[in-house]
């Protein structure tokens, strides 16, 4: 019963929380740049506006694929916050990402094509650390079920510092933040126009944005798991991690794909891989 409740709560609350977080994100970013920034509710206003626009496209397939992207992002969240298997949630997340990439490819637009290729590189960069994280949690808590990890009494981070650090680095990819915002960026400063999102407009883009809000909550939830035993500490840690991401976003410039991929893989291998190998030997 509890898990179903949690799942339903996720369905409604997650976009609200995600929207507020990204609203605050935009204000903090603006303040870092010496600006005032938009209202906190701006992300909601943006999305609402997108749904007011005319429904245009290139052909049917991209919209359908974007809907699947959103649907499976929600499924991921339901599995994760419903206490399901962590690996299953990760696979659903990958599936959702693949739908976004396929949608971008299917528009056959040059910018979206390059963006889709880079999004795939990002996916390739991120995938290993996420799997290693799941296995790390299994080694600490003895279960892959998110519910067991949420209710774990100790602090997993004490045994998984390397995995945590590599996860913090990799989060930048997932949040589309500089220096790893290869495929699409929040800022209008890149050569790719809007990368994967170039051809999506109106409600299609709105669905992408909503999916991103869900994704934000899921990823922060994953970060929270490292501090599962202590609610307060966990929330503080998640806030600090997110602030660090904003800081990195505003103080670095984008790197090319090869250094990004190398960085991600090496960090994952040394910190994440090293961590779980040592842990298994103990």
């Amino acid at each position: 019963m509890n898990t179903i409740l949690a799942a339903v709560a996720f369905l409604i609350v997650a976009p609200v929380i995600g929207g507020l977080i990204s609203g605050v994100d935009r204000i903090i970013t603006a303040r870092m740049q010496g600006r005032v920034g938009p209202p906190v509710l701006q992300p909601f206003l943006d999305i609402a506006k997108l749904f007011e626009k005319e429904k245009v496209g290139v052909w049917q397939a991209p919209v359908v694929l974007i809907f699947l992207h959103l649907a499976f992002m929600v499924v991921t969240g339901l599995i994760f916050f419903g206490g399901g298997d962590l690996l299953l949630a990760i696979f659903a997340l990958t599936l959702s990402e693949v739908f976004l990439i396929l949608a971008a490819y299917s528009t056959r637009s040059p910018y979206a094509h390059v963006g889709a290729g880079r999004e795939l590189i990002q996916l390739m960069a991120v995938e290993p650390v996420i799997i290693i994280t799941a296995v790390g949690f299994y080694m600490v808590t003895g279960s892959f079920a998110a519910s067991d990890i949420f209710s774990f009494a100790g602090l997993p981070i004490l045994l998984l510092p390397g995995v945590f650090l590599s996860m913090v680095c990799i989060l930048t990819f997932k949040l589309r933040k500089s220096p790893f915002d290869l495929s699409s960026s929040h800022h209008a400063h890149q050569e790719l126009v809007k990368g994967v999102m170039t051809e999506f407009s109106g409600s299609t883009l709105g669905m992408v944005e909503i999916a991103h809000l869900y994704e934000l909550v899921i990823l922060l939830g994953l970060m929270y798991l490292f501090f599962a035993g202590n609610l307060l500490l966990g929330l503080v840690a998640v806030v600090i991690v997110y602030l660090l991401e904003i800081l990195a976003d505003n103080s670095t410039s984008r790197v090319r794909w090869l250094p990004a991929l190398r960085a991600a893989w090496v960090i994952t291998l040394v910190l994440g891989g090293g961590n779980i190998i040592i842990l298994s030997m103990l």
Partner: protein
Amino acid sequence: MIDTNLLSVMYMELLLFLILFPLIPAIMLYYLWSENIRGIVVTIGAGLTALGSILLLAITTGQNQSFFTVPVSGIAILMLILEILIAGYLVIVSLKAKQYLVIGFVLLQLILIGAAEWTGLQGHAETPDLIIDQFSAIMAVIIGVIGGLICIYALGYMREYQKHHPDLFDQRPRFFAVLFLFLSAMFGLVFSNNLIWMYFFWEVTTLCSFLLIRYPETSEAISNAFRALLYNLIGGACFPLAILFIILTGGPENLGLGSLIAAGPAVALIPACLIAIAGCAKSAQLPFSSWLVGAMVAPTPVSALLHSSTMVKAGVYVIARFAPVFEGQILGMLIALIGGVTFLVASCIAVSQSNAKKVLAYSTIANLGLIVACAGVGTPEALWAAIFLIIFHAISKSLLFLSVGTVEHRIGSRDIEDMTGLAGPMPRVGLMMLIGIAGMFLAPFGMLISKWASIHAFSQAVPPFGMILIIILAYGSAVTVFFWAKWMGKLLEVRKWEESIEFAISKAEWVALIILTALTIIACFGIAPISTYLLEPLLVSMYGPISPLISQSNMMIMVLMLALIVVLPMMLMKIFVPKRNLKRYMGGVTVENGLMEGSLGMKREVSLGNLYFEDLFPEAGLSRYGSAFTIVLIAMVALVILVWGAI
């Protein structure tokens, strides 16, 4: 209640039927030149074989492992004579082609197996010849149904093939005869309990493979065929060594698969490792893997049947058979590492390939590597994953091969770059290809479930090997997602709805493609029943009571996700119709029908290339390092065996 005695007789007759029946169409086809009659014979032969295998699976459900002795004397002698004949044939062919290394290995194997038979002949009869349990039955269905479908597909494909290669002498009678001979040998292999029998069928599959790879008779095809033969013989030499070892140490009563595994690691580990090395060669693990890539010169049905979905499965089948022996052993972990390294290296190489058949070949090698890794880990959950990998890989990969073959004949290319927007002009085949690819790596489809189970299994394996395998798997699957997703994207990059070019695809091809597509989806829905009714009883009989595997609720989630994927797109395609279609954005440049207006009003084609990263994932370099690494691993296995043997 059927009398159990009667049942067991029926049972054995069914096994013998499956082994011997394909020989009848094989012999008929060899002498048949009429295309129409050939079509009938192939269809009936393949149909009966498939039905027989399904019947076998139905009977086996709920039964325990059982063994049979064929009550006919002289089979062993007959097999030895046939082995000598095969060896003689290979020696003659190799002499003509000046392949002296091959001759050396043929003779070496003949001496080894001769010695084994001679020393072990007296105890030979005590070992039951045949084994049947759920694993064998599953393999039989894969061989019967998928093999049968591919044979039917080959009818249409080979007609086109001969049209495309007018200078090639029409050897189709022999071609189809060998296909059926191969089915027979595969059935024999998976039903053999007696290792001497198994070795015989093993050699026949090697021979079939050799004959089919050299079918195009180009110099490239012939040299690749000899490479395949050589590598299989090098690996295959370990097989009679294992038999010899068993006879010399444990006594001939351990020659049966069942009794050998039951004897436990103390007796079985060394022969199991030797056979595993033979299996690695057959299933194209590094350092042997180049033969399988070379084998892609053969016509597509051969690639599909032998080199992706069926024959290479023989190698992983025997390794998986010995999984209980490998459980928790360092030697097992070394074997698993060979598989793991192969998985990673082959996946990386697949990124750099744009030739569709080569991508499929490397992905086959990679997936076989994963199966070997699971079998080497050897826990019940790992074996569960390995068997599911075998099932789903066979279905999806054959579907992919066949659709690539069909596309190749329509567009005249097997390059992925030439398949840009294929979903436009070939909507149905394109969709099948998309389903096949999705079956290889996406979440609710079968392969991913196996990957999931293997992560579960690896995380409990002997540290630190388990973690190393996890890291390998994590990186390998990231790369896998990359190369499959970019292929899917390529297919979807539709310029506009063009005229269909799906005409002139023969009925035989459609039948095979449609059934395989349906199987890809149905098999995923059937995971829970397959697991409950086939695999769990099997694992219980092999390991005793087992801890719960992937829970039913999680499998239900998977099934729901699959239902979403199957149902949603069809519904949404009708709901989400854009009010207006805009032109693609290209910085304000006018784009019409895929042509952009360049400077001076010149029209240029918009061409979008995929990423291949030849510098990051070079084929030659990666396979060199991979081979070196796996050779070291094999050497370590050999060293451990030698040291242990000495003690």
